[in-house]
């Protein structure tokens, strides 16, 4: 390995011309392993008979239906929650409230965005649970990370409205997900990539400066000599920065610039998951969200042989078997994405602790609706995968129309952030749901 390859392999950080965030040092080695939380979203409800086990139960009595089959290898780390309702009413149609109240647990403001029914709505009236947890973790030096939370999108439509946003920093403050892997890469590792590119041209640049200098009369060379010194100085800076700092995990290699369009969705999904896992492995955040399209998402999964848009299909009646089959395939594809995420996390040992990253990461896969054609906000699917304190896995629990605000409280507690209330206070009075 020559010097320059070495520079490429250990890309440096922190040259002054790109003033990124100050690189927060990794938190002091904590006694407890870090606990992480990822929310994953897919739209338009699920196909209940192909999704929910026939009975609640654990261990051998917990049997997966077709949609969950891609997760069979992780069955003992799965927890399914049935009977949880989004009980937020008020302005907005089912899809709008399903999305914008999913993590906020509070009503939407009256507004100017007219949906398929109900009253036109605005943004949610409060923060989402992931952002509440993130703020608490960031306030504590032992859990603070560079970003705190990261919001990923896969083919999220380029509109900001109550259908496309589920993460809120505060009332009226939706957070846009990063939809383009190139944008994510730039945000996470931008300085590094720029450094790599510069390193790759420094030799040629020095050579050119030397040739040009010798072509000038001696009395005009001083400026170019100084210039050449600066170029050599930059090379030295990059080497020193490389020696001083390295990432635990190398940034993933992306396959060039990929347009954010429908047909690239499988590749975009893989890239975003790779980046998400990479960011978590480098402890840039403890909280994350991964949003596939949006509420009313209309992905055309032609790679599965499905020409129709997801949302249109979801309106077809239960009796239309062909559509139910396609919807099942679509949901299986989402489950596969979850499986890929779990598998990536499970492949990385937790530094300084036993087990893998998946053991200390809880992924919560959810949806804005229970069922597409009825726009029901009951039986919202919640599939937990991984590990977190207080959650017993390898089972399905069934509740009776419990408000989802109670689940928010449970998840916060599992992240070490005990809360009495999240979202609408009346819906929190019974406290966190017990999931053990």
């Amino acid at each position, binding site marked *: 390995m020559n010097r320059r390859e070495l520079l490429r392999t250990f890309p440096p950080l922190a040259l002054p011309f790109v003033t990124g965030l100050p690189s927060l040092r990794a938190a002091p080695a904590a006694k407890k392993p870090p606990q992480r939380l990822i929310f994953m979203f897919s739209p338009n409800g699920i196909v209940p008979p192909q999704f929910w086990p026939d009975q609640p139960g654990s261990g051998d009595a917990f049997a997966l239906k077709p949609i969950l089959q891609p997760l069979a290898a992780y069955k003992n780390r799965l927890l399914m929650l049935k009977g949880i309702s989004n009980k937020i009413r008020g302005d907005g149609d089912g899809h709008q409230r399903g999305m914008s109240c999913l993590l906020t647990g509070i009503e939407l403001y009256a507004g100017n965005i007219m949906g398929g029914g109900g009253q036109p709505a605005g943004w949610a009236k409060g923060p989402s649970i992931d952002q509440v947890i993130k703020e608490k973790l960031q306030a504590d030096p032992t859990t603070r990370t560079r970003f705190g939370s990261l919001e990923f999108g896969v083919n999220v439509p380029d509109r900001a409205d109550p259908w496309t946003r589920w993460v809120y920093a505060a009332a009226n403050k939706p957070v846009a997900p990063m939809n383009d892997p190139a944008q994510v890469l730039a945000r996470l590792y931008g300085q590094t990539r720029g450094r790599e590119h510069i390193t790759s041209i420094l030799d040629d640049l020095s050579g050119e400066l030397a040739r040009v200098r010798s072509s*000038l009369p001696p009395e005009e060379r001083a400026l170019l000599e100084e210039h050449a010194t*600066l170029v050599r100085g930059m090379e030295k800076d990059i080497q020193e920065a490389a020696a001083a700092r390295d990432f635990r995990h190398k940034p993933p290699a992306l396959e060039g610039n990929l347009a954010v369009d429908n047909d690239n969705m499988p590749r975009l999904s893989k890239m975003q998951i790779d980046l998400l896992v990479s960011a978590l492995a480098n402890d840039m955040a403890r909280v994350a969200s991964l949003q596939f399209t949006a509420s009313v998402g209309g992905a055309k999964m032609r790679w599965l042989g499905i020409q129709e848009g997801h949302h249109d299909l979801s309106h077809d009646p239960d009796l239309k078997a062909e559509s139910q089959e396609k919807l099942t395939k679509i949901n299986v594809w989402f489950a596969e994405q979850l499986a890929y995420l779990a598998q990536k996390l499970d492949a990385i040992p937790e530094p300084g602790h036993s087990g893998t990253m998946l053991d200390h990461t809880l992924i919560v896969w959810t949806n804005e609706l229970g069922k597409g054609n009825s726009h029901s906000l009951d039986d919202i699917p919640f599939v937990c995968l991984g590990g977190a304190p207080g959650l017993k896995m390898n089972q399905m629990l069934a509740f009776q129309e419990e408000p989802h605000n109670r689940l928010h409280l449970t998840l916060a507690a599992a992240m070490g952030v005990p809360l009495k209330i999240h979202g609408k206070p009346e819906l929190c009075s019974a406290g966190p749901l017990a999931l053990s």
Partner: protein
Amino acid sequence: MIPICPRLISSPAIGRSVLAGVLLFAWPSLAAPGTEGKALYDQHCASCHGKSGEGVADEYDEPLAGDRGIDWLSRYIDRNMPEDDPDVLDAKQSAQVADYVYHSFYSQAARDKARPAKIDFVRLTAQQHQRSVTDLIGSFRYREPIVETGGLKGRYTSADPKAPLPEKKKDESDEDQRHRRPKKTIERVDPRLSFDFGPGSPMGEDLDASRFQIEWNGSVYAEESGTYEFILKSENGVRLWVNNELDQKLIDGWVSSGIKVEHRATIHLQGGRFYPIRLAFFKFNDKSASVSLEWKPPHRPQEFIPARCLSPRNSKELFVSTAAFPPDDASAGYERGVSVSRGWDDAVTQTAMEAADYVAARLDRYSESKPDAPDRAEKVKVMLGKLAERAFRRPLSEVEAQIHIHQPLTSSPNDLADGVRRSVLMILKSPHFIYPELSPKNDWLVAARAGLVLWDSLPGEDLQRAAARGELHARGQLEPRVRGMVKNPRTKAKVHEFFHHWLHLDKAEDIARDPKAYPDFSEEVAADLRTSLNLFLDEVVWSDASDYRQLLLEEHLYLNGRLAKLYGADLPAGTDASSFQKVAFTPEQRTGVLTHPLLLSAFAYYKSSSPIHRGVFLTRNVLGRTLRPPITAIQFMDEKFDPHMTMREKVTQLTKSDNCMACHSIINPLGFALENYDAAGRFRTQDNGKPVDASSEYTTAEGQTFRFNGPRDIAEHALSSRQARIGFIEQLFHALVKQPARAYGTDTLDRLHDLFVKKNYNIQELIIEITTTTALHGIQPPST
């Protein structure tokens, strides 16, 4: 307040400050230095002034240089020199010393001979660098020149309230039923984006009041370079796009809850260019509707975007780097790229990286390809070839194409966009881009120089094509093309900057006046004055006559309602108080830029006029004389004077000592001639309860004395003075060329001057001549 010269001379060494105190322009002389004078100088003067007038540390360390005439020097030496015993030299000997000093090192001609001015080998200045990159990338998108301004095109759409109602659906509200009527769109040009429709319709009965959409399209013109903040207020749904064709919104407030929200966002824009702008608005059953778009441009308070900066015509997006370059060396009075630094190198790198990402994101657009096209790589290579050729302002050699294009592309074979990034980085970091004069001295270099002189940027396609055909090495070939470039907005932006520099407007920011004495003088007034002056300058410079004399003699001011009130004028009846109108004054009250209230305010104190600031400005910038900074500073402190004194009396008292008067005998008479204007530039006849005395006596460098009574006399004197005209020409030359004028021949300024006078003081003709002359400097026609 603008500290042009807040310090006054206070030194016991009377003689020292005098010879050094006044530096003037050259008068070439052919006489040979006398030997008697040299012997006397060596004996009596050299111990303090140095063997060749270079100065002696701890004695008199300033070089003896200036352009007082020999007679003046002779008189001065006879009276004051040597300092310890002025009587040791008689009048004849003093004249001999003066003759020697003058011809050996004091005069400009002597200095030219001793140390001829040379053209410095320079890099692009920060501004040239940024503009070149902007125009380089912009060259891949054809931009039609925009001439039409006055507002944005608005498209107003709603269900047609006059169309028949469709049949009502089950459970449908009346409102929904009404809105299923066919859509109707009305178009118009809106000069000002500030609307409060209340609960009603924007078009009376022609459009529906409860639900409607508006989309404004067109271009926005950035007068100056820098950060622009856009402020969008509405209680309804709004979106704003500025300078982005990839659909990245600057502001997205599409969702709203009927409560007025203020959205703010900033963007960097390069001056002298139009940028695409689009504003979308919709109302959906909200109780009321309003929308307003303001901006905060560099050096100005927040305001509605003026109609002169809006065009209903579309333009193309432009790359604008966000890198902050360190300021360039301006020690010569103009910016020069004579040094490099770490901060500069970082800014160059950041610009290159941003540009690389920008081009990579627009690969197919610029190369006219498609992501899956089989010839994509080939087309991208061609695109990079054009990019490098435009950046280097000449064709590339084989070796250069290898290093800047082929090698970076092959270094990342699986990622074309990444290869493009590396290539763009290499091109924009290359010395061939950064040092224009590295190019061979041929037609291409002529084009490159013309681009830099007129635009601080790359030459346009027209010039490059002419260079490629080898049609640019002769005056007759170049001049008509330069003539074509002069009226381009890029030239206008650069000439604007020259005037701002000449009139010290870079320092005329944050003018604050004592609110007790000047209750109506606000930040907005200062901004309006800036607009007023710009309108005046543009009118004069870009008219066909382009007459320098008009700059100094014109009797009108551009005023809007706010300014008219403050300056005691009436706008023409029936005109809009927010727009600027030409208002005539008497010749005694206003005379061109000299009495523009912005300058008079900039050269004034918090509470009072400042004859010293005004006098220094007139001495240096209008009469073409140079003043050396005072040796010791004295602060003007108003409270130290008898409160009954006028400003003229205070300044007279403060500067009465002989050594002060060495410079202030020039400064004060000029400043006193402007005492009819208070600290806000309003005309007055009384100061501190006493009548204003604006009369004064002024002595030229040649020793001629003139009697001035007010600013018009100064303006007329400036127009009759060759020195003053040459001073203006030299400043313009330096601002455009960024090299010393004398380096193009010691007679350059004289030649330009004679042409200027012959062409009736036409500023555009002067610009064309400066560009043509300097672009062709040292270019030989190709040998056949």
